[in-house]
């Protein structure tokens, strides 16, 4: 009988937020507006706004939230340079998938009753040194 998995703080699955970005569109337009589609894995828990730039992800205290991104053009590079969000709610940290240099951001929701918390994502696109930042706001909702 395999041993039990290490229990997480409240046993719920981490919520993954995926940002799908049209890399060529974002570079040609100089913005991610109109080029970004966001999804998360908590539809069952009440997340809304799937496929838009204003994803509303439903979270509770103790939830781990993971952000990653992928480019529409499968060989193009997109990455997350940073996430600006109220640090009293969550402090995302950059991690890499072990043994690779592919990064993701992960944090744990610190409290309940967070109401609506907007955040900004800074994307690295192609070989461009300056990140491109979201203009519309995705949010975490409690």
């Amino acid at each position, binding site marked *: 009988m*395999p*041993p*039990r*998995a*290490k229990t997480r703080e409240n*046993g719920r*699955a*981490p919520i*993954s937020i*995926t940002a*799908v970005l*049209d890399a*060529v*569109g974002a570079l040609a337009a100089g913005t991610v507006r109109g080029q970004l*589609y966001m*999804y*998360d*894995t908590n*539809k*069952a828990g009440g997340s809304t706004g*799937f*496929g*838009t730039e204003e994803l509303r992800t439903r979270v509770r205290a103790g939830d781990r939230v*993971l952000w*990653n*991104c*992928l480019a*529409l*053009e*499968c*060989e193009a590079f997109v990455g997350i340079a940073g996430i600006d969000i109220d640090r009293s709610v969550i402090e995302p940290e950059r*991690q890499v*998938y*072990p*043994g*690779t240099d*592919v990064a*993701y951001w*992960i944090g744990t929701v610190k409290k309940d009753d967070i109401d609506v918390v907007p955040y900004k994502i800074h994307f690295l696109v192609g070989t461009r040194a300056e990140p491109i930042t979201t203009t519309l706001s995705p949010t975490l909702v409690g």
Partner: protein
Amino acid sequence: MPQQLAIIVLVDIANALEMKTLEGNTYLFDNMKLHGSEGEGTGELVTAIHGSYWRDGSQATEQVLNWLPYSLGSIPPTVPRGYEAERARQTDRQALTELESMVAKPGSQGTPEATLTQIQQTIGTRVKTTKRTRGPAGQKVLDVTGNVISYDGAAAHSYPPPVITDVYGEAVDKKIMYPAEYGSPDMVTDGWYWSATVDSTRPGTYTYTMAIQLHRLLLQGGDWMWEPVDLTCDSKLRITSEPKRNAFTKSGLGLLPIPPA
């Protein structure tokens, strides 16, 4: 050679398995928004295929479609596909090292039971393969951060990407497109991908269906196995075709517009 069309099929696997349908759990994208594709990022994508023809009516461009299935919330496709196998090997090596040091220096790492538990967690849960298994083989269960986990049926784990097993429907029956499975060394596609060439001489909107196989972890006889679950998803192609023309003269071939010296 015109741009190749890529159609991304992003599946929320956990919810699709739960609800036993891809409808509402699948998001489609293509790179043809400029040519008029509609419904990007939804389950209602209509892919615009912009064909062209020569003056004698023969088809001028060969449009190629490629399908890329991804699993939402799992380890992204940018992580090399040998990843699961590599992680399995790494953790096995690590477990062997821990076992070695336990044998060499008994008692230095705490009680044997605790150490063994630690080693078992390092090893994680391996998924059993049988001769019939077509899906992901010889792997261990990974969580969404790429760490090997000991799976007890409750923890969240990374799913292998969905596999397209067939492309059929009106667009194929009417010979608008000719899909086939191709081998590729590309890491992103894990060796196999579906591709189709398009006959763009008959404009119109045509539906097609993708047979998509998901995998669910199932405990059978004490072993965890990936059980395939077959579902389908529909989409559409909208074909248009316009005549090619000379860019300098806007009609036929002429002299280059070089200014006289």
